[in-house]
């Protein structure tokens, strides 16, 4: 179902560093999850409307009312680095 190369690619896209053992383990685990999904996919769903969630709730909204967050400083302080009003991030390398 899934091979080691695909696991490595997914890990890279998620910015995860996996050891050899982890790659081996996730290939096995993800494979068994995908096998299970493949089994589900064999169920006859002709005429069954698609479901996006398990609960029957739609249209949850809030009013467009401003509430200023009181902990702006906390959020800035919590970042790895800041420069006065800004979050500071390392140089963005385009590659």
């Amino acid at each position, binding site marked *: 179902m899934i091979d080691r190369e695909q696991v490595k690619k997914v890990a890279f*896209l998620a910015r995860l560093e996996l050891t050899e053992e982890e790659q081996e383990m996730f290939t096995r685990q993800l494979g068994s999850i995908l096998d299970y999904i493949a089994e589900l996919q064999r169920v006859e769903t002709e005429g069954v409307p698609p479901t996006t969630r398990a609960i029957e709730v739609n249209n949850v909204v809030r009013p467009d009312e401003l509430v200023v967050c009181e902990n702006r400083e906390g959020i800035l302080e919590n970042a790895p680095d800041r420069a006065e009003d800004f979050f500071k991030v390392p140089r963005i390398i385009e590659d």
Partner: protein
Amino acid sequence: MTSTAPPTVQYEAVIGLEVHVQLSTETKLFCRCSTRFGNTPNTNICPICTGQPGTLPVLNQQALDYAVRAATALNCQIHPQGLSKFDRKQYFYPDLPKNYQISQYDLPLAEHGWLEIEVEGEAAKRIGITRLHMEEDAGKLVHAGADRLSGSTHSLVDFNRAGVALCEIVSEPDIRSAAQAAAYAEELRRIVRYLGVCDGNMQEGSLRFDLNISVRPAGGSKFGTKVEIKNLNSFNALQRAVEYEFTRQVDCVRSGERIVQETRLWDEATQRTISMRSKEEANDYRYFPEPDLVPIALDSNQIDAYRQRLGELPAQKRHRYCGTLGLSSYDARVLTDEREVAEYFEQVVALDIPAKQAANFLNGPVAAYLNETRQSISQIKVTPEVSAELLALINQGIISNRIANELLPGLFEAGGSPRALVEERGLTQISDRGQLEEIVNEVLAGESDSVAAYRGGRTKLLGFFVGKVMKKTAGRADPQVVNDLLQSKLAEQPTAPPPEPESAAEPPEAPPAVEDAPLEAATEAVTAEAGSAEAITAASEEPDTPVSHQDAHA
């Protein structure tokens, strides 16, 4: 657009646009932070829009309402599959605090719409709209240590914009030229501004365009390799990027090169598109349903209610102004460009002013004044009622156009009732034949040389005499009566002067109504088309050179 080079094949451009429209909500799409532009960096932030663990987004009712309104105006079907949901679009970039953007993937809010564009000299054309979906904006990056990304030592991030509500509107590849692309973008801006769902402020990035363009032999049905162009922040940039890219791609094809499917950036400084190195995994967004938000499912009653509340849109107004009101398509386009102006115009017409007169008045002196003072029409002291009263005074023969022109600056300045002003300042038009006859006689008596010249064939001098009468009456004389009187007086005692050779050939001509240039013509803002029928340049005192030595008497 077709290429003009004759030798080989003619090419056409196939263009689709993706437009990001910032919705005019008070707060962000999924949190209660302000959307105010220009605040101190990172003041409009909270745990939700900075992606802190354990926070939950909740959809802004107003943003949903605006998006459905826009979709309805764009003739879209609202979630044709019965519901719409949000998805996570995953990628890593420092302007994206959660490392995913909440967007919509396979079940967008709306699909299958269209809008109508009008390009000067072309028939109105429908451009298909593939889809409209909602998503959150990203933050803003400032690259320190350099002007550009390359060479910067580090970057600074401002999340004030992160999470602001956007609508992405994707067109079908129905656009064929730079002019059509600009017309589409402008019409879209016009519609969202009419609806009040977006302020349309281009400088603040409230509307942003991405362009997909390919070329193919004109009239073909296969698509060429498409190139995406980003960073278009004005109609002008959009239009020039299309022109540049069309030429580039046609040259490419003609010289046998392969067009690379890629993303290019519009570079305003050099007026070119520049290739961005494409990242292989760039498009691997691994969308999956956003588990923290429930679907949107509007019932047919709700959707119908949106349709009914829509009101008249720019294209419908244009059709009505041309069809029912008999305006030129130019006038209709100018008047409907902004909803406020269209509504002002409609109010004036509702006060029994002929549509063409109201249109000329608005597109002429009012437009010039707005332009000059940088005000919007709703701010000025000349309200629709004031305009209608002024124009009615002309139509009732109470004042001349010239007097109306003279009153306008004061009305723009201080407002007030034109009728009261006319009465107070004694500006009522003099139409009494007897009273005018006396003045005409006086004028003619003092200009005997010019009278002789007129009778000798220089009939163009009529305007000169009209001017003299107007001067004597401070512009209050009824020009029609003055014209009649002068013509009959000057024809009264025809002596038989030796005909001047040059003027003998002149055919008899209708009197030029120079003194009563219509109100709308009194400004340079009147374009050739708007003013051509009536625009005689503003009332001039000396329409023809009188016999020169007469000036001493005047």
